[in-house]
């Protein structure tokens, strides 16, 4: 069974290999082969796999998704999507269409000396050695079939590199668009390196054209040097018939700060894995998330924080708002390794179900091997507060409006934790548009 399911990808990979045979260096070809072999070994996960117990992705992957070529691009559709995704003209912006950089929609303002913001494909051409080191180092393919699949098709994505002591003030906005007329897949692969004492803000947006089904299988690999500071945002606004699978891996060195803001709105099935390895002392790691599935959407949010060294803090708050027949999955792992004394880890997942048919599976997992630590976790699932609804209505506020206010209020702390005003305003406007909350 599994063999036949991965067959599509084997065929697709053969075509991809053929297409790229003249332009690709040996190491990249080998890396891709390793990816494909690993993917074939692992197979597409089924619900028998503990990590995929609540997320039945295999049937959705039966569609023959093809690696999209550039031939089907329609300029006006892209214009429209870029406009929809754009947050601020002051941001540096790289636009990727079907996983490949589209220069005509990308804008880079002046960057501080030494800072690299470019396409991975370009970096591979210009600096094959350093990219080879980085990609091969990242390629311990672990147990993730989708990570392996991404490696098998690795071609483009963003390469962001900030040297020691440099701050990039303007946010760097990466926009990933899927624009196709037949079922297609893209495998963007982003690498981010922040040197010692450097600072940057990154926003990843994922969108697509309505109509055709598509599959985004994204990977972002982040390295933060000593005392580096990264404010990371991801806005998942895929089309309703999209499949979105993403893995973000973060490795943090001493004194670094990582703040993640994940917002999940779109897709038929959206799965986001965020793994943070805290490899030094005095690290701060904050993971905030908001997922709002409606209709028959499934949103699976997984986080893993590895406290490997002493004196690190992690703070995690995920909120879910589920309506109709939507399904949510939250899995938050925190590993406190033996050496990680004085760890302070807080995790909270709160979900509200707006309908009787909505379902959430929530699973906090704490594994603690150090004895002098403070770790707390909590998960709550409930409905909208009836008392609060009554209170608002008894002041003349109509029931629908009152409900909307309470939903907005529930999401508010996650939204307000976003420090970039243009991103926060964008999120507020999505929430307002989605729920029709008037400006009182």
């Amino acid at each position, binding site marked *: 069974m599994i063999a036949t399911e991965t067959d599509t990808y084997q065929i697709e990979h053969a075509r991809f290999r053929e297409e790229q045979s003249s332009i690709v260096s040996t190491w990249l070809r080998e890396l891709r082969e390793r990816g494909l072999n690993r993917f074939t070994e692992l197979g597409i996960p089924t619900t028998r796999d503990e990590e995929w117990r609540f997320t039945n992705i295999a049937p959705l992957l039966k569609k023959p998704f093809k690696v999209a070529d550039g031939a089907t691009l329609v300029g006006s559709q892209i214009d429209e999507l870029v406009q929809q995704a754009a947050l601020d003209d002051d941001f540096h912006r790289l636009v990727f269409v079907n996983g490949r950089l589209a220069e005509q929609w990308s804008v880079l303002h002046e960057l501080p000396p030494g800072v690299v913001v470019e396409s991975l494909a370009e970096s591979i051409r210009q600096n094959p050695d350093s990219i080879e080191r980085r990609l091969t180092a990242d390629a311990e393919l672990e147990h993730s079939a989708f990570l392996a699949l991404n490696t098998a098709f690795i071609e483009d994505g963003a390469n962001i590199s900030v040297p020691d002591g440099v701050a990039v003030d303007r946010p760097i906005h990466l926009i990933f668009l899927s624009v196709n007329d037949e079922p297609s897949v893209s495998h963007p692969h982003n690498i981010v390196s922040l040197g010692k004492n450097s600072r940057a803000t990154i926003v990843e947006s994922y969108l697509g054209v309505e109509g055709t089904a598509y599959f985004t299988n994204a990977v972002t690999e982040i390295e933060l040097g000593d005392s580096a500071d990264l404010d990371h945002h991801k806005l998942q606004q895929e089309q309703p018939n999209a499949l979105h699978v993403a893995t973000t891996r973060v490795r943090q060195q001493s004194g670094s700060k990582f703040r993640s803001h994940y917002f999940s709105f779109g897709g038929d099935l959206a799965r986001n894995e965020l793994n943070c390895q805290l490899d030094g002392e005095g690290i701060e790691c904050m993971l905030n998330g908001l997922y709002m599935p409606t209709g028959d959407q499934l949103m699976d949010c997984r986080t893993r924080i590895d406290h490997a060294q002493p004196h690190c803090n992690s703070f995690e708050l995920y909120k879910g708002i589920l309506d109709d027949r939507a399904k949510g999955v939250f899995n938050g792992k925190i590993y406190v390794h033996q050496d990680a004394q004085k760890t302070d880890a807080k995790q909270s997942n709160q979900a509200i179900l707006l309908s009787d048919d909505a379902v959430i599976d929530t699973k906090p997992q704490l594994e603690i091997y150090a004895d002098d630590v403070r770790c707390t976790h909590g998960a709550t699932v409930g409905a909208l507060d009836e008392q609060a609804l009554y209170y608002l209505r008894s002041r003349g506020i109509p029931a629908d409006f009152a409900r909307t206010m309470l939903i907005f209020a529930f999401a508010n702390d996650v939204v307000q934790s976003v420090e970039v005003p243009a991103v926060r305003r964008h999120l507020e406007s999505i929430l307002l548009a989605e729920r029709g909350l008037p400006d*009182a």
Partner: protein
Amino acid sequence: MLEIKNLHARSDDTEILRGINLQVSAGEVHAIMGPNGSGKSTLAHVLAGREDYEVTEGEVLYQGKDLLEMEIEERAANGLFMAYQYPVEIPGVSNKYFLKAAMNSLRKYHKQPLIDTMDFLALLKEKMKLLGMEKNMMERSVNEGFSGGEKKRNEILQMAMLQPKLAVLDETDSGLDIDALRIVADGVNTLRSPERAIIVVTHYQRLLDYIVPDKVHVLAEGRIARSGDKSLALELEANGYAFLETCSA
């Protein structure tokens, strides 16, 4: 203004109101007193429309209309206001947004233009000053982390902003020190007018020193056991609710 006839209501399987009859005219202030569990708060919530209570018998006419047929928000839009004994905390909704949303909801209901933001802020500032409220309370979430006294003032502030025709104050005096009590009572008294009616639900006579009622009713076991003028409140203060036992016997 308000006519309650033979009102019976229950929560789950417990009958709480067992035939209330009460008539309140415009311009009047009525006090409803009674021991704990007599049904005072239930009466207030049945009027406001809380869905936890089921009305099994009787009717309530408000301005000639069947109140029990109206939605909660419709009652409010028609000028009914209840000041809660336990105001609800709503994290994430600012007090200012909430108040403006409430005012504009009433205006929309009556097909009036929405309030201008500057006018709203000016009015708010004026009313808050009267109630001795800190400015920052408007930016804070509705009732969240407010002290008991702050919550009660916030109720009266809402009342002052919404200018109801019939205000029902449910144990507004509970948890208030004497200074706060005076401020809250002043807020209520400014609302007194020939077009409005006020029902003060209270366990103690104390509040009635400041909000002097035209009529006092004593509720016991879901019925009005006695009615009188303000001297009845004083009598209760002196003798307690002990007389009720002889009444119901």
